[in-house]
């Protein structure tokens, strides 16, 4: 009886986690390159109180056993890497990836991080950096007298200098991909880090061998869909209430039993 309280409590905790995840998804509805997270739940272990096949009356065997479940637990959070909509911004260094892949970012510490947020800019040294100022791999320097910059679908960066009619190439942005992008760990600041679960980063050229193409002048919008998330929020909230009702019902039963002693 008291065990059942903790069973119902696992249900409330699970719904609470769902609400937290949805809140984070909704908060990032307008974050470029953001990928929504979902939680996969699994039922918890069962207590086997009676084996099937036991005799319940002379000559009658029970066809089923008796198992009491102990609730639910979150098995994993999964980032859902479906393509976000591409939004035309017209900025030369707003880059969106259409398809698979990430931009690689070099942190000042030397570590590599990955992102789909391609709102890049040029810093004082002429380097292409993220909006937080981290250098975008493989490190591209834009000459000071560049009139305009154009990034091709394969990542080649071309600049038009001074009064030149033809542009000159200053480098190529590479992309990386992972066997299991869902296994990347979100580090905040729109950055993802590789983990043993994600597998090793594979570097390659955009638009080739399964890599997505780079679209200059576009940003990838978050793949969070408001209506879907709100529906899930309502479902989770109701499920939370129902589980709390289960606890209350159990409490009523215990109160009734308590009255026996009084």
């Amino acid at each position, binding site marked *: *009886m008291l*065990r*059942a*309280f903790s*069973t*119902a409590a*696992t*249900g409330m905790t*699970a719904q609470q986690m*769902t609400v937290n995840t949805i809140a984070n998804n909704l908060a990032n509805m307008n974050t470029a390159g953001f990928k929504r997270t979902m939680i*996969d*739940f*699994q*039922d*918890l*272990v*069962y207590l086997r*109180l*009676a084996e*099937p096949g036991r005799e*319940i*009356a002379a000559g009658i065997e029970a*066809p*089923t*056993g*008796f*198992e*009491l*479940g*102990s*609730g*639910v637990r979150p*098995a994993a959070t*999964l980032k*859902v*890497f*479906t*393509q976000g909509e591409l939004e035309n911004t017209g900025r030369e260094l707003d880059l969106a990836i259409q398809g*698979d892949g990430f931009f690689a970012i070099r942190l000042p510490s030397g570590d590599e991080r990955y992102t789909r947020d391609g709102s890049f800019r040029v810093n004082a040294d002429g380097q292409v950096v993220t909006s937080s100022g981290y250098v975008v791999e493989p490190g591209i320097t834009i000459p000071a007298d560049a009139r305009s910059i154009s990034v091709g679908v394969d990542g080649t960066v071309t600049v038009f200098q001074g009064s030149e009619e033809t542009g000159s190439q200053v480098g190529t942005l590479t992309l990386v*991909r992972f*066997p299991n992008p*869902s*296994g990347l760990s979100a580090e905040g600041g729109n950055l993802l880090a590789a983990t043993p679960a*994600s*597998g090793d980063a*594979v570097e390659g050229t955009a638009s080739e061998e*399964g890599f997505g193409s780079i679209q200059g002048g576009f940003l990838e919008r978050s793949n969070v869909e408001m209506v879907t998330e709100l529906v899930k929020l309502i479902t989770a909230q*109701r*499920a939370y209430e*129902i*589980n709390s*009702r*289960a606890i209350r*019902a159990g409490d*009523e*039963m215990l109160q*009734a*039993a308590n*009255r*026996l002693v009084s």
Partner: protein
Amino acid sequence: MGTETTAVLAGLGEQYHTLAHNLANINTVGYKRRLSRYAAETAAGAETGAAGANAPATLQSSTAIDFSQGRLVRTGRSLDLALSGKAFFVVETDRGERYTRNGVFRVGGDGHLVDSQGRPVAGEGGPITVPPSVSPMEVEVTAEGRVVAGGAPIGRLRLVAFEDPNALEAEGFSTLVPRDGSTPTPAAETTVQQGFQEASNVDAVTELVGLIQVTRLYEANVQLLSLRKDTGKALLGVAMA
């Protein structure tokens, strides 16, 4: 005298537990609700035992799994697979093959198709490996369970069915195992739906009605017990007077 009621109270407590477990799993993908068979057996016992003498002694709860189809919810995620029909996915665990209806899969670090906990999903010819050159988003799964990556077939999901699904026992963590060691047969008439999750088949209203019934029955039985206590006291009072 009171043992009968006590057994009923314990049985109701267990029923309550099963209801609470179902409600906790109302949003668990692929979860199948548990039925508590306690009431059915009491009724049968009352019928057969003319004097009702052996009814309390045989009051034993049992649970069964309700394998009815859960509704399919669209997620658009390429590796969310839902089954319609009576089949199961097969996952490999360190304790052997296990069966599940939870088709939330992903590609593991080594390229194998695994479930959300990292257990490999079995294909007809061993584990299914997604080549590194293909994004998990571009994996296609046909209605028959054939897995295609970048236009090339890379395997077929092993889908199995059991002649007697009642032989399956829940282990937790979304998996079932046949307790008599029976082997499954290849599933027929099952379709795999890519981009969908099979929702839990727990229906809130049914479980809440059950919860109300159990609570009220419990209170009634406690009432009965306290009446007996009072009668006993009154009798004792008469005897001692």
